[in-house]
C-alpha cells in the first residue's frame, strides 16, 4: 500500500529516499506475475536483470538527479536490448540476443529507468491488433475477448493493466496511438526525426518513430525529455534541439486553435466514438481553445498511400533476414538460394509475407511508377493539406480510431478491413508530425475511446501540452480496468 505508481511519483519518491528502486521494481514484477497470465502483454520478463539494476540504482548517490530514477519500464520487443532476447514477435528472430542496446534503451537506463521486460506486438510491428505475433495475441485488459489494438498492443496493455507506468512502442502508421486509445492509456508519436531509431528493428524507415505509452501525459513528457534529441549514430535524427516537454505542460489550452477535419470523419465512425469526440471538443473549448473547421481532402487516400509506401520499404528492410548473420536458419536446404527461401518462408508469418509480397510487387519493374512513385506524390499532397491546416490551426483534433477495440479474430481474415483501423493515424506518419492520444471516454460497452491531437512538425511540446490540459480537466485517465494484481494507487 502507498507505493507510488506513476513515473513522476516513483522518480520523486526514489529521489527523496522514501522508497527504494528495488521495492518499486519488485511491486511491478508482482503485478506482472499476477496479471500477465491473463493479458499476455510480455514476451520476456527479466526479473533478475531488473532487480540487479534496481539495487545498483539504490547504491548510486546520484540517483536524486536522474529523471526516471527507479521507474519500471517495458519495451516493445522490436527494440534491441543487449543480452536480452529480442524477437520482433517473429519466429525468424526466435533466438536473437542483440549484441547492443538501442539508443533509447541506453538513454532510459542512464536516466535511472529499470527495464522489466519486452512486450508483445504484431510481427515486425505489422498489424493493428497484436494478433500477428508469432507467440500468440495479447488480450485487452478492458475486455478479454477484444484485441488491445496494435502493433504496440503489449506495451499498451501492460500500462493499461497497471503492470508498469511506462512503456515504449513504435509507430509506423498508428502503432502507438491506436493501441493506446483501445487500451485507455496515453500514447505519443513524436515528430519524425525527434527520437533516434538506432536499435529499432526497422519496418518502414520513412515512417517509423519510437515513443512512450503511459497513464498520464506528464509521464509521457518526462520520457520524451529523456529519449528525444539528436543521435550522431542515426543520420535521420534531427539536429534541432528538442523542446523541454515536461516543463511545457501548463494545464490550459488558452490561445490554441484546434482544427477539426469534419469532412474526413463522415464515414465509418462509430456513434459512441463520435459522441465522446464531440464532448471532448466541447471540453477543449471550455478550457480556452478555439475550435475551427479545417480540410484534409487528400486524407481519403492516406490508407492506400500508406500501404504502398510502408510495404515497399518493409520488403527492402526485411531482405536482411536471410539466415546468414543472425536469426534462425531453416535446415535441409540444398544450396544458398533454397536456404534463403526456406528460411524466409518458414520464419515469417502470414501477414509479414503478405506485406513483403505487396512491397516487392509495387517496387518491381513496370509497376514502380504506377504505385510507388505515384504514392509518394500523393504523400506530398497529404503533407500539403496539413501544412495548409496548420496555417490556420495550431493542432488538428480527430478520434484516434474510428471504433473502440474490436474482437479477437474479427478482422484477421480480411486484411483490408484491418488496415482501415489506421485511417485517422497514418496521416501523422506520412507527414512526419507529432501526435498524441489521450483517453476521452467510453463506449456503451465500456471500452475506452481516444482523442488525438496532431501538431506541426517539431511542435511536440505543444501537442503534449494540449493532451495534458485535456487530461487534467477530465477524469478519463484515472479509470482503469479491473485486472487483478494492481495493489497501489496513483
Amino acid at each position: 500500500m502507498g507505493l507510488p505508481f506513476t513515473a513522476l511519483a516513483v522518480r520523486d519518491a526514489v529521489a527523496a529516499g522514501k522508497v527504494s528502486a528495488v521495492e518499486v521494481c519488485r511491486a511491478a514484477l508482482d503485478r506482472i506475475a499476477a496479471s500477465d497470465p491473463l493479458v499476455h502483454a510480455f514476451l520476456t520478463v527479466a526479473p533478475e536483470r531488473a532487480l540487479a539494476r534496481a539495487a545498483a540504482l539504490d547504491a548510486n548517490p546520484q540517483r536524486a538527479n536522474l529523471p526516471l530514477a527507479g521507474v519500471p519500464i517495458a519495451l516493445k520487443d522490436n527494440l534491441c536490448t543487449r543480452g536480452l532476447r529480442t524477437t520482433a514477435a517473429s519466429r525468424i528472430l526466435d533466438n536473437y540476443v542483440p549484441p547492443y542496446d538501442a539508443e533509447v534503451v541506453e538513454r532510459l537506463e542512464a536516466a535511472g529507468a529499470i527495464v522489466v521486460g519486452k512486450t508483445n506486438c504484431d510481427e515486425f510491428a505489422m498489424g493493428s491488433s497484436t494478433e500477428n505475433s508469432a507467440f500468440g495475441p495479447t488480450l485487452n485488459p478492458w475486455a478479454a475477448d477484444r484485441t488491445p489494438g496494435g502493433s504496440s498492443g503489449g506495451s499498451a496493455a501492460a500500462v493499461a493493466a497497471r503492470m508498469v507506468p511506462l512503456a515504449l512502442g513504435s509507430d509506423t502508421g498508428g502503432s502507438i496511438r491506436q493501441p493506446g486509445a483501445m487500451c485507455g492509456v496515453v500514447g505519443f508519436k513524436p515528430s519524425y526525426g525527434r527520437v533516434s531509431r538506432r536499435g529499432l528493428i526497422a519496418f518502414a524507415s520513412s515512417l517509423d518513430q519510437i515513443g512512450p505509452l503511459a497513464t498520464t501525459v506528464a509521464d509521457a513528457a518526462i520520457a520524451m525529455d529523456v529519449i528525444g534529441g539528436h543521435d550522431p549514430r542515426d543520420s535521420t535524427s534531427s539536429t534541432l534541439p528538442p523542446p523541454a516537454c515536461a516543463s511545457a505542460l501548463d494545464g490550459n489550452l488558452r490561445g490554441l486553435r484546434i482544427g477539426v477535419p469534419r469532412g474526413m470523419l463522415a464515414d465509418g465512425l462509430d456513434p459512441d466514438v463520435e459522441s465522446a469526440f464531440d464532448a471532448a471538443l466541447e471540453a477543449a473549448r471550455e478550457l480556452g481553445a478555439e475550435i475551427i473547421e479545417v480540410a484534409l481532402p487528400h486524407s481519403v487516400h492516406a490508407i492506400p498511400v500508406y500501404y504502398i509506401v510502408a510495404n515497399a520499404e518493409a520488403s527492402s528492410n526485411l531482405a536482411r533476414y536471410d539466415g546468414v548473420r543472425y536469426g534462425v536458419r531453416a535446415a535441409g536446404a540444398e544450396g544458398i538460394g533454397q536456404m534463403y527461401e526456406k528460411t524466409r518462408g518458414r520464419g515469417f508469418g502470414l501477414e509479414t509475407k503478405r506485406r513483403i509480397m505487396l512491397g516487392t510487387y509495387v517496387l518491381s519493374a513496370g509497376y514502380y511508377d504506377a504505385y510507388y512513385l505515384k504514392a509518394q506524390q500523393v504523400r506530398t499532397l497529404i503533407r500539403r493539406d496539413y501544412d495548409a491546416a496548420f496555417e490556420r490551426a495550431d493542432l488538428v483534433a480527430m478520434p484516434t480510431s474510428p471504433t473502440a477495440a474490436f474482437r479477437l479474430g474479427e478482422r484477421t481474415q480480411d486484411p483490408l478491413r484491418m488496415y482501415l483501423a489506421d485511417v485517422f493515424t497514418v496521416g501523422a506518419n506520412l507527414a512526419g508530425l507529432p501526435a498524441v492520444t489521450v483517453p476521452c471516454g467510453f463506449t456503451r460497452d465500456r471500452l475506452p475511446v481516444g482523442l488525438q491531437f496532431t501538431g506541426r512538425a517539431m511542435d511536440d511540446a505543444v501537442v503534449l501540452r494540449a493532451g495534458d490540459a485535456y487530461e487534467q480537466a477530465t477524469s478519463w485517465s484515472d479509470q482503469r480496468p479491473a485486472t487483478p494484481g494492481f495493489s497501489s494507487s496513483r
Partner: protein
Amino acid sequence: MPGPFSRDDVERVAQLARLELTADEKDLFARQLAGILAYAEQVGAVDTAGVPPTSHAPGSAAPLREDETAPSFPREDAFGGAPEADPDACLFKVPRVIG
C-alpha cells in the same frame, strides 16, 4: 494500372522476394493481393501533375561529419548470433553457392 493478380504473378513475386510459399499461401495471396491492389489503385486517379514525390518526411537532417577512425563493433559480437560461422577466419558460413 495492372490487372488482377494471378497465381503466376504470386510465384514470380515470391521468387523476387526469396520466399517459399505453400500452395495454400499462393492461392490466398492471389486472391487477397488482387483485392488490396484494386483498393490501392485509387491513388492512380489523383492528379499529381508537377507534384514532387515525398520520400522522407521533413525533419531528418542527415548531417555530414568528418570521417574519423573509431573502434568498430567487436568481431565476437558480430558473429555471436550467426547460425554458422568461423569468427577466427572472419567468415559467415553458408550452403554451397555454385553448383
